[in-house]
């Protein structure tokens, strides 16, 4: 492998790699704004200056490919002056919004100014301002904060495939906007906020809700579809405030869709069933586990029993259902359900040209791996038990007794007789298998709400012969 030297350290590199990427591996962080590994290189911000031996001018590291024997300095006086110069230019017109700006604490402009800029302002002229447009329900635009890095324009063009975010006019007056106050159409608009290095593009969903440094971050996987985009859920005090994509070059690269990004809301939905409940006439009553679990056991002891397993459950949950059935209800049929029309992974496929898959559940392949056949048609039996994670779409059910174990909402409860609240994907650890067959770990970020229990626990308590009745 060819080698070059960065700040005196020898580093190997792959042919074609740029200096930002090579330096990162050597543990040297070169400040950038316009450079993003998932987007084309434009070398516009002029922040990533480095000194390269034998080249008279400073070079932008993002557009300079490493060469054998290249000697690079990232901390020389000339480089420091260059970076300070760029920071000064960027702050000429940038408003001092930090106290009210969502980006504070995770802002590249703040970080680079603190690390490489000057403490003083030499500019006393009037600042340039813009009139903002409403870009729709996802993104909040504040053009005064923009540093014209054009990451958003390139994202729209290169990744989202829709050239709706554009730069109009030229020179100092460039306005980056959608035209005629049109809203962003792309279903990947949330990514604009991730890539914006300032608070110019922020999420309306997150606006003014929580300071970035107060958030705890848990690395998990999105359950929105069978893509399994890697995701980070950001929470505090057991409340989720935001989900952002994590880098995974094999699966989602740096992005995620808006459906997946905002999927977390249902976990905190006030109409989610959080207590064991039973139907009584026209109304629903909260009941005790000790009352409901024995009836589940007796209703599944004989007769035509159907266990419906949502393809939005983890492998571990699916296994525990199968084991429980094998041990205590071997006559029960076990079938999977998920997204209508996408019952098997052969029917699954890309829904768009970017990330979305047709199956709106995260573990369709996992269910197949475990040999669980899909339900076809109506779910008909004497007793039907529906195990569901929150994404699988309920089929038509015709049964004398209908149990729901998992995540359910008030709007759909009337098809059931008993509801036993389970854990959402943010409240459990587990394994899901994405459409490529890659196994990924869900990581618990939240502690269970209300009286929700894990499916495995519910099944053990229901069926284990030694269980005595629990007192409520």
């Amino acid at each position, binding site marked *: 492998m060819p080698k070059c030297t960065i700040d005196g350290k020898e580093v190997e590199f792959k042919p074609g790699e740029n200096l930002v990427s090579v330096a990162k591996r050597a543990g040297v962080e070169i400040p950038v704004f316009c450079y993003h590994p998932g987007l084309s290189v434009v070398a516009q911000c002029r922040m990533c200056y480095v000194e390269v031996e034998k080249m008279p001018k400073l070079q932008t590291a993002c557009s300079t490919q490493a060469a054998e024997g290249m000697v690079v300095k990232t901390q020389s006086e000339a480089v420091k002056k260059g970076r300070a110069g760029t920071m000064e230019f960027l702050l000429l017109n940038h408003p001092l919004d930090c106290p009210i700006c969502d980006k504070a604490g995770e802002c590249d402009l703040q970080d680079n100014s603190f690390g490489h800029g000057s403490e003083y302002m030499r500019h006393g002229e009037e600042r340039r301002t813009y009139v903002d447009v409403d870009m729709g329900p996802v993104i909040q635009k504040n053009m005064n904060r923009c540093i014209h890095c054009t990451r958003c324009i390139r994202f729209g063009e290169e990744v989202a495939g*829709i*050239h*709706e*975010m*554009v*730069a*109009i*006019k*030229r020179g100092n007056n460039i306005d980056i906007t*959608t*035209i*005629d106050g*049109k809203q962003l159409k792309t279903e990947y608009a949330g990514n604009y906020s991730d890539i914006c290095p300032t608070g110019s593009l922020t999420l309306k969903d997150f606006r003014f809700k929580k300071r970035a440094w107060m958030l705890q971050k848990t690395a998990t996987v999105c359950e929105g579809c069978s893509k399994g985009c890697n995701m980070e859920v950001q929470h505090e005090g057991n409340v989720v405030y935001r989900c952002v994509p994590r880098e995974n070059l094999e699966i989602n690269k740096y992005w995620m869709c808006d459906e997946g990004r905002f999927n977390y809301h249902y976990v905190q939905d006030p109409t989610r069933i959080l207590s064991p409940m039973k139907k009584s006439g026209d109304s629903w009553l909260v009941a005790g586990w000790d009352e409901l679990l024995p009836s589940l056991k007796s209703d599944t002891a004989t007769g035509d029993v159907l266990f419906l397993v949502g393809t939005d459950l983890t492998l571990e949950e699916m296994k525990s259902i199968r084991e429980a059935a094998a041990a205590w209800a071997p006559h029960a049929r076990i079938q999977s359900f998920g997204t209508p029309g996408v019952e098997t992974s052969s029917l699954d496929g890309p829904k768009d040209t970017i990330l979305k898959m047709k199956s709106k559940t995260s573990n369709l392949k996992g269910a197949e791996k475990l040999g669980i056949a899909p339900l076809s048609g109506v779910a008909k039996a004497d007793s039907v038990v529906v195990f569901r994670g929150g994404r699988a779409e309920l089929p038509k059910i015709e049964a004398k007794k209908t149990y729901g174990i998992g995540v359910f909402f008030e709007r759909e409860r009337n098809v059931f007789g008993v509801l036993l609240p389970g854990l959402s994907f943010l409240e459990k650890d587990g394994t899901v298998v994405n459409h490529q067959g890659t196994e990924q770990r869900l990581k618990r970020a939240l502690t269970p709400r209300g009286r929700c229990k894990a499916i495995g626990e519910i099944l053990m308590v229901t069926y284990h012969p030694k269980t005595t009745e629990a007192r409520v």
Partner: protein
Amino acid sequence: MEKHLSEKFYQAMKLKESRYPDRKALILPALHQAQAEYGWLPKEVLAEIAQYIGVHEAQIREVASFYTMYNLKPVGKMHLKICTNVACCLRGADELVDYASKKLGIQCGETTADGTFTLSEEECLGACTTAPVMMANDDYVENLDIPSLNQFIEKVKHER
């Protein structure tokens, strides 16, 4: 979509289509052709051009707004663009702009109330050896001085 551009536009563009390997290269010629017909480029015309080329409307908007010759607002029948860059400045262009402004009763960037004249300052027009120079719509008027500028304006007024 309602068509604002004429058959003539589409025929003229058709002749150019085979000259470029990429359809997007027709954008600048299309904008020139449409402006020649319309006088300026309203949003509806830009949207129609976007449809003709086959790109998002926003792309046409971003290109049109980059270049100073494309009028995104209506202009008068006679657009006077007086160069005030170095060579013309050295030979008295600023006085000519002041004179035109007073004579027409408008500031730079404005149009006379009757819609006849729009006055602008312009960057170097590339006729520096015959400075001062102005563009009057598509034509160059060179070796400009106050008498000839006055004469020009009067001529246009009378022709209206």
